[in-house]
């Protein structure tokens, strides 16, 4: 059972895990990305084109076409055109197009295929946590969303544009963004990737953060960012989602419940077991007569510089 003030314990656990990782890495060996048959040599993209002309042509509007051009110039040892991704092709050619003698992404697992992509794309700031992403852990690899040869969306070679692509799996999100009160995702103003780093990150739900590592919501809702002399504690400690449902809601202002007062009272009720940091205990005013919405008076509820009770900004 964990107890309070166990910072040391956490640090020890973290160090232990880090040590385990390092120790484990010492025993780990062998190539991470898939490889072509041993002895196979690079033959050049023009050879590939001889049989795969349609694919070659389809690659032209694609950033990876650069690989073909630079493969011809051999500007670096890793630039081999088609074979940059599919590996040396001589065995495949000599085998009369034997699919087992070349790296075929159709036959790879999501992790293997992604490892091949990450050979080049690992260093990107967006992708540098993909190895630990929720997507990859659940068998959703690069080629689940991106298509190098048949992308329908030029941007990032996506199989479909956002949010359609995301909705293909996240069916619940499509319904949420169709509610009366919603972020304008279906309208194209906001994209899923504006809030979520689909390639993984250190936040739960793969959320982005603002530049100062605060909540991503503050990138647009700057007026609620603060800092404030009088912070409404849950905004900063529990996050915006303690009161709001971020995708969409049947309630105005994306609130979790329909009545403002109920939302407030469910926290601001002093009870015997309540922690001491949650005064006031509830409204001094008769709910049946007036003050039907706490935020009518406490209108700066996200934080205030000039009112301890959030009456002023």
């Amino acid at each position, binding site marked *: *059972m964990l*107890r309070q003030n166990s*910072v040391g314990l956490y640090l020890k656990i*973290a160090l232990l*895990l880090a040590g385990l*990782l390092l120790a*484990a890495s010492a025993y*780990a*060996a*062998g190539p991470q990305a898939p490889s072509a048959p041993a002895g196979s040599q690079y033959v050049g993209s023009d050879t590939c084109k001889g049989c795969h002309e349609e694919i070659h042509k389809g690659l*032209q*509007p694609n950033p990876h*076409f*650069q690989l073909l051009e630079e493969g011809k110039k051999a500007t670096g040892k890793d630039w081999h055109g088609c074979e940059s991704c599919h590996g040396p092709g001589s065995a495949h050619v000599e085998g009369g197009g034997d699919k087992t003698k070349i790296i075929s992404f159709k*036959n790879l697992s*999501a992790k293997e295929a992604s490892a091949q992509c990450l050979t080049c794309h*690992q260093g990107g700031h967006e992708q*540098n946590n993909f190895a*630990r992403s929720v997507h990859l*852990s659940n068998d959703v690899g690069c080629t689940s969303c991106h298509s190098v040869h048949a992308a329908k969306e030029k941007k990032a070679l996506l199989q479909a544009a956002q949010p359609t692509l995301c909705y*293909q*799996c996240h069916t619940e999100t*499509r*319904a949420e963004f169709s509610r009366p009160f919603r972020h304008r995702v279906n*309208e*194209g*103003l906001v994209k899923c990737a504006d809030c979520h780093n689909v390639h993984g990150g*250190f936040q739960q739900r793969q959320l982005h953060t603002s530049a100062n590592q*605060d909540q991503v919501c503050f990138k647009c809702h*700057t007026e609620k960012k*603060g*800092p404030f*002399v009088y*912070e409404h*504690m*849950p905004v900063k*400690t529990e996050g915006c989602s303690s009161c709001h449902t971020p995708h969409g809601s*049947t*309630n105005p202002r994306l609130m*979790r419940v*329909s*009545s403002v007062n*109920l939302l407030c*009272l*469910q926290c601001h*009720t002093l009870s*015997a077991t*309540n*922690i001491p*940091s949650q005064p006031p205990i*509830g*409204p001094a005013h*008769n709910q*049946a007569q*007036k*003050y039907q919405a706490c935020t009518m008076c406490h*209108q700066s509820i996200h934080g205030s*510089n*000039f009112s301890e009770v959030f*009456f002023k900004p």
Partner: protein
Amino acid sequence: MNHRTPYCTKFGQYKQPAARGRSCGENLMYKLGTLLVGICLLAGMMAAQTPANTATTDGKEMGGYTVEQSVELGYRFVDVTGNRNIYETFLDQGEGPRLLQQSLSLRAPSGTGLLFDELSVSSFGWGGDPENVARARMSKAHVYDFTALFRRDHNFFDYPLLGNPLNPVNITPSFPVNFSTQGTEVRRRMYDFGLTLLPQSKLSFRLGYSRNREEGPAFTSFHEGVDVLLNQPWNITQNSYRIGVDFKALPKTTISYDQFLTYDKNDTDSSLASFTTFTLPNGKPVEFGLPWNPAAGAPCATPILNGKANPACNGYFSYSRFQRVRTSNPTEQLTLTSNYFKRVNFTGRISYSSADLTSPYSEFFDGLVTRTKERQFTFSGPASVRRVGATADLGGTVDLTDAVRVTDSFRYDNWRIPGSWNSTETVTLAAGTPVTLLSPLGATTTTNDFLANFLGMKTFQNLFQVEYSPSKRFGVHVGYRLRQRHVFKAEPEIVDEEAGFEPFEGDDITVNEYGPLFAAWLRPIDSLRINAEVEFTKADNFITRVSPQNKREYRTRVQYKPTRWANFSATANVLENRNNQADEQYRGHYRNYGFIATLVPRERFSLDLSYNYTDALQNAYICYNGTFLAPGTVVGACPTFSASDNNNPNWIYSNYSDNTHYFSSTVMLKPVKKVTANLGYGITRADGNTTVLNTLQPLGTLQFTYHQPLASLSFEVAKGWSLNAYWNYDQYKEDSFVNSLFPRNFHDNRTVLSARYSF
């Protein structure tokens, strides 16, 4: 077209002299954006008129570039019946000519472009749509990559049940509030520019600039004696700059340094708005505010005497407040990403940020607060706040074998917010008796207080996982998530300048959350993937009463893609929250089940079907003060209360539940080559219930039906040219109690006729 209700007319008071309320600077940026799109359009059209060297199905070849372009111009007709303000809150599309969509792309596939290898510009919503976006990208391989994004949204909100005093109507005179006292008509313009230099070199540089501008009329309310309506036009600006450098020190290893500079301005001021303005016996106008319920003493028992405003009431002659918030926030960040060692992947990031906020303040009230006998008061004095934050993220992955990998993600986050307000208050009481709005000004007292406050939180969190995937058919991972949060919240204190600053007194809260997670995926055939994930979290403490001490999440997804043209997905997500403290009994859940089927069997036909059901609940014991007793109330049963704060310590197990069904379907037909038709229908139906603490309170959106059929027809009149018609119908209807307010129902027809040209 006059579509605004009187409420919107009030908003209209804030229209600025500059076009559509834009400041001069904003106008310049807006014009530059428009100019950029205009130039790109022109370039595209010129390119279109240039004889093509080689015509291909994808664009035209011109000067070594493959050029593609499309532009769609049209006119939207809008017909709204019912509550126009709710229509605008939900949809906000107006009538008029529109540049509906535009795109331009120039590519030099072989990398032979002089200034760029690729240039693309796309945009939509020009001409007054509520959402307006433009994106641009220009790049030259190995040299630079430039991106630009402009987003504008018109955020109209007037759902009238938030902050509504629910004034009774069975009295004379009655003043129902049929608008949102917190309504907004804010325009947000966001600009994001990014430039990467030498993107594939060992040393590359990143530059960025973002701007977020929010402005527009808005209402708010203020309580002193009575609640009055305030005009509060938003005037908020954020400018962010970033510069970064990436150094590829070793193969597959990148060290990055980033410096972010963010500057915020908030010049939002407030002033008294008129709602119930009457004339005093001496002819002077006085504002009695929003709540009009004399039986409950708002603004007083007898606000009207002999046809004139009763001077013994609470009332406002004037009120204003002024602030100039300035925040500077530099952040430094160092990142290391490495895949240098085989089978080991590592990412580490540390960052430090320090925000400083300062703001002068000025507040003036002239009127009467009967409780304190104040006739005038002012507040002034600057506020000063800091936010200091340090963050460290470490993530590692080791592939022990081809089938087994271990991962760990650790995050340390420590921020603190010390703040102070050097407040000067002057209070002028009413002279003589009785105290009325007509009383002359009496004695003035001045008080100076240095108010200080503090909030801070330190977080450690770690997620350790072991993944086992022996083949491409099956995988499983187990993990354990830990999070410790230590919060210190001070009680705001008045600092004695002579005695000096004393350590804060407040509350220390430590919350340890921990629990296992288990997930598995199965891919019995290439086209079918099944995912299941379970996570249990326990907490030994809580920060708010609705912070769960026991949380369970179950997520299941099935995706079946038998062919390239068919996709079937189904999900079931269940989140269960509990806090079992005897006098809280917090119960919350969010259960969601849905499926999507998308079929595109041939170019001439497609079908999209979607259904979703959501069951949300949030219940907890509450203590409330009220003479209206909601069913289930136990009078005087609050376990702990202060009689001075709560005269009616009523205890009830409060309830909120919502069941929402969503269904949509779209069919695309192409009966002949040149004709494309779409037919669709969407419906959202919500049924909910909640504890009602006031007999006048409408349930609002707890019960509604929202129909959204659509249709479109496109006819290709010539190569590259098409004529289009789009039709949307929306019908929103609330089933629940309306009270004295305007019904919040509407239905509309939105029709767009357009012409599209593309090549």
